[in-house]
């Protein structure tokens, strides 16, 4: 792969990029995507959320999984950071705690690919503190 050193290089990469995205997105509506949110508040960042987020973006791309990885704020599970929320198509979102790159790998391979449950899920027993 050519090195990207300037905006012109980036522009040149655009066509390959577009083709790659078109190929992947064919017939994939937004609700069919895997959506991952990485908690990136002070607590998350201090515990290594940036490494996890970079790992997820890189690996999901490499392993050909159609996913959107975004940042979110603190979900209130500061003790279990880094936390990520994974929403598989047509399923309720699941929050995982203590996610390092090893755990993230396990989540991709077992939960995202096969739908198996993986240790480290933070149970959600109410929607919000005012709505038990």
């Amino acid at each position, binding site marked *: 792969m050519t*090195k*990207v*050193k*300037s*905006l*012109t*290089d*980036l*522009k040149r*990469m*655009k066509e390959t*990029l*577009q083709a*790659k*995205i078109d190929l992947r997105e064919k017939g994939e509506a937004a609700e069919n995507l895997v959506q991952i949110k990485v908690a*990136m*508040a*002070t*607590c998350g*960042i*201090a515990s290594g959320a*940036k490494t996890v*987020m*970079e790992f997820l*973006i*890189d690996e*999901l*791309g490499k392993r050909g999984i159609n*996913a*959107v*990885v*975004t*940042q979110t*704020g*603190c*979900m*209130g599970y*500061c003790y279990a950071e880094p936390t990520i929320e994974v929403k598989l198509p047509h399923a309720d979102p699941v929050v995982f705690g203590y996610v390092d790159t090893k755990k993230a790998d396990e989540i991709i391979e077992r939960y995202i690919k096969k739908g198996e449950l993986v240790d480290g899920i933070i149970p959600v027993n109410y929607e919000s503190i005012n709505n038990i």
Partner: protein
Amino acid sequence: MKDLSLHVLDIAQNSVVAQAKVIQITLDINREKDYIELIVKDNGKGMDRDFLDRVIDPFTTTRTTRRVGLGIPLLKQNAEHTGGKFAIDSEPGVGTTLTARFIPSHIDCLPLGDLAGTFALLICSYPDINFKIEVTTEKGRFTISTEKIIEAIDGVTLNDSSVYPLVKELIKSNLDEL
């Protein structure tokens, strides 16, 4: 925080939450004159005098999920540990400017860390916000903005996972030369 780049990532989230449309991140690294100056300026909703006075207090936060807000206090502490300075100024409706100055020769000064990754993550995660990034050293200056990147890749969404590695590489190869 383990390094300065993580502070940048963290502090920029405050501007994002403040609904800023433009976030300017300026980093001036001058080892000869022995200072690193970080300025984060946004055009978000700003803070009133009363809140500004309390913002360096770890028990001040706008969020409801927890009762502490450590982003600003930790940055202030790390800057002051090196003998540097910290300042924050804000005006409601206009925006906020935060300045942190570090003394890099001090043993407690944090390493710079993965700046390219931080900038690329910010740019790719928030396509609606125009990040204007400027890094200056004795050797030269590098500037990049969300606007310019969107222009270059026009039509491709920024938060697609194949864009991030390219943006990171672009920033990294330029920063490495500084």
